[in-house]
């Protein structure tokens, strides 16, 4: 039996009202996070009632995975200095939480972070949060101009079968609810019309109409080889010189960027040191610095590291580092667009 078959009977049409009231009933036991409208922007925030949710959102600046599972900043150890030094290991957080309305791009980004933090070496802080977090994904029907998930296979509808708990598709006044985990099956054991072939066809029709809304694309075929052939292409140099500010916005908003720094902060009386980890960025000048040199001293090299880590370097995990969410394009203060850089390289090869 494949993973899909196990939960086949758990495809249901649920009235939105009853889904939200079920969520509200869980608020006592779980911390709930979801998309909330703040002025003209949507952000993932902690919510206390489902009324706060804005499920028709397009995109957010920060991805839920890098807010609530891989925390931007986290204290790991305390070193107490009295006679000798005692190490206090801060235990991973065991709070139960639910993230609601995670788009396919961001769900795939969490699966990507899993490769880093739950690969051969497991990060206990990430692992604990990941296990205690229920992910309710929402198929995306609101394409933004910078979205290119359809080109890289990570959206707009979620294809992954594992690694999250539930998948919702907006069917007007109802959700098509696809259960993907045992715990979701238990918590959302609700009455609803069983979804069959007909509903799956409607779902496919919705997906097809969403696919038509994409304006940005990237040709993935041969992308690895394209970049490897063009490590010294002028696009790196002129984009770095004319536009890149090394501000690191791209890295910080990227849902798959996992780099962190370890920082020691000592108290004024020097009796206690906290070891903290926080997000770091390869765009920072000192990121690859060693004694006597810097492997990415030039801004062009740092820009190339970010872009190729997303669109090349598949040797790392066997998948592309991008999920096509387009955040790095949206939040770049000078509008650098990695898909356009790939196009420029491709075009120059054709001209030769």
């Amino acid at each position: 039996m494949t993973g899909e078959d196990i939960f086949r009977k758990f495809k249901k049409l649920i009235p939105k009202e009853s889904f939200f009231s079920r969520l509200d009933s869980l608020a006592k036991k779980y911390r709930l996070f979801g998309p909330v409208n703040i002025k003209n922007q949507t952000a993932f925030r902690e919510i206390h009632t489902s009324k706060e949710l804005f499920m028709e959102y397009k995109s957010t600046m920060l991805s839920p995975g890098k807010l609530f599972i891989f925390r931007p900043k986290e204290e790991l150890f305390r070193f107490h200095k009295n006679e000798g030094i005692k190490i206090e290991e801060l235990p991973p957080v065991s709070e139960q939480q639910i993230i609601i309305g995670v788009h396919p791009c961001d769900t795939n980004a969490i699966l990507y972070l899993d490769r880093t933090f739950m690969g051969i070496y497991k990060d206990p802080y990430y692992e604990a949060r990941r296990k205690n977090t229920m992910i309710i994904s929402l198929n995306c029907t609101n394409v933004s101009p910078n979205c290119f998930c359809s080109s890289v296979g990570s959206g707009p509808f979620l294809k992954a079968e594992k690694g999250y708990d539930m998948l919702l598709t907006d069917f007007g006044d109802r959700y098509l609810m696809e259960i993907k985990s045992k715990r979701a099956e238990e918590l959302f054991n609700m009455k609803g019309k069983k979804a069959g072939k007909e509903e799956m066809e409607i779902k496919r029709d919705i997906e097809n109409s969403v696919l038509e809304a994409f304006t940005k694309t990237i040709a993935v075929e041969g992308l690895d080889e394209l970049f490897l052939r063009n490590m010294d292409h002028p696009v790196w140099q002129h984009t770095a010189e004319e536009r890149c500010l090394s501000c690191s916005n791209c890295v910080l908003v990227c849902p798959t960027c996992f780099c962190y720094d370890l920082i020691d902060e000592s108290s004024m009386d020097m009796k206690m040191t906290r070891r903290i980890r926080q997000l770091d960025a390869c765009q920072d000048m000192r990121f690859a610095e060693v004694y006597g040199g810097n492997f990415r001293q030039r801004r062009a090299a740092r820009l190339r590291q970010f872009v190729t880590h997303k669109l090349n370097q598949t040797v790392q995990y066997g998948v592309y580092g991008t999920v096509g969410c387009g955040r790095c394009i949206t939040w770049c203060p000078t509008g650098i667009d990695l898909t356009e850089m790939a196009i420029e390289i491709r075009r120059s090869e054709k001209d030769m």
Partner: protein
Amino acid sequence: MNRLKPVKARIQALKKQAHEVKTYTLTTENLPFSALPGQFNMVGFPGVGEAPISFSALVRENCFEHTIRSAGRVTAYLDGLKEGDELFIRGPYGKGWPLRQAEGKTVLLIAGGLGIAPLRPVIQGILEKRGLFDKVYLIYGAKNEKHMLFTDEFQTWEEEFPLFLALDEISNPDSGSPRMKVRDKRGWEYHIGLVTDMLDKVKIYPQRTIAFVCGPEIMMRFVCRGLLLMGIESSSLYVSLERRMKCGIAHCGHCQHYGLFVCKDGPVFSYKQVRGLPDGLL
């Protein structure tokens, strides 16, 4: 298991090795690991930070060694420590030198500067089981004679295999005339010039030779290219890379070298794997 959690280590012995370089003989309670040649520890102190440091000797009689130059913030702090003081370590991390693959083969060990430190456990391993290996050569170069490390061990080494020593310069030439060779007060003869000059001295059958190279990346580039010209396959050449590291376990991303994590996939790589990668000199 939290791999970021360090353990206390005590400095059993401290030896000034050369200019700004010391060898720290360390021990920890219930020594939590065994290490392989070429692996490294994160060594540091709370409030100061941590730095990746290769083993210069593996665990023996409950002690192991790191040979460290005072260079950055962390190592400058370590430089101020005395015998009996504590520091913090975690590890070992990474892939080491493929010593098993070298058995039965001619082994070329080529070191530049501090690069001799990660190769010292290989040398010690060869000395312990000399019979397992065919011919062994050590080519070792440093800036000047003051920067030569482990000079007091040269004699033991030379009893088992030839040493070829090179210096970029003489720190205190006793005569004004340039010479191609000098002797230090212990009687060691140094060639003045680059490590690559010494490649002509070794006679090898390329198909049956394996080379371990460690030093500044620019030196490794030219040594490896020299060895390729001698006919050694790039898959039989091994280099140890240096990168900035924070975690040692392929999480923090600092050491990423075009998709490779130097801390997990290396620091020892075959030259074939890393030759020509962007943001490197190889």
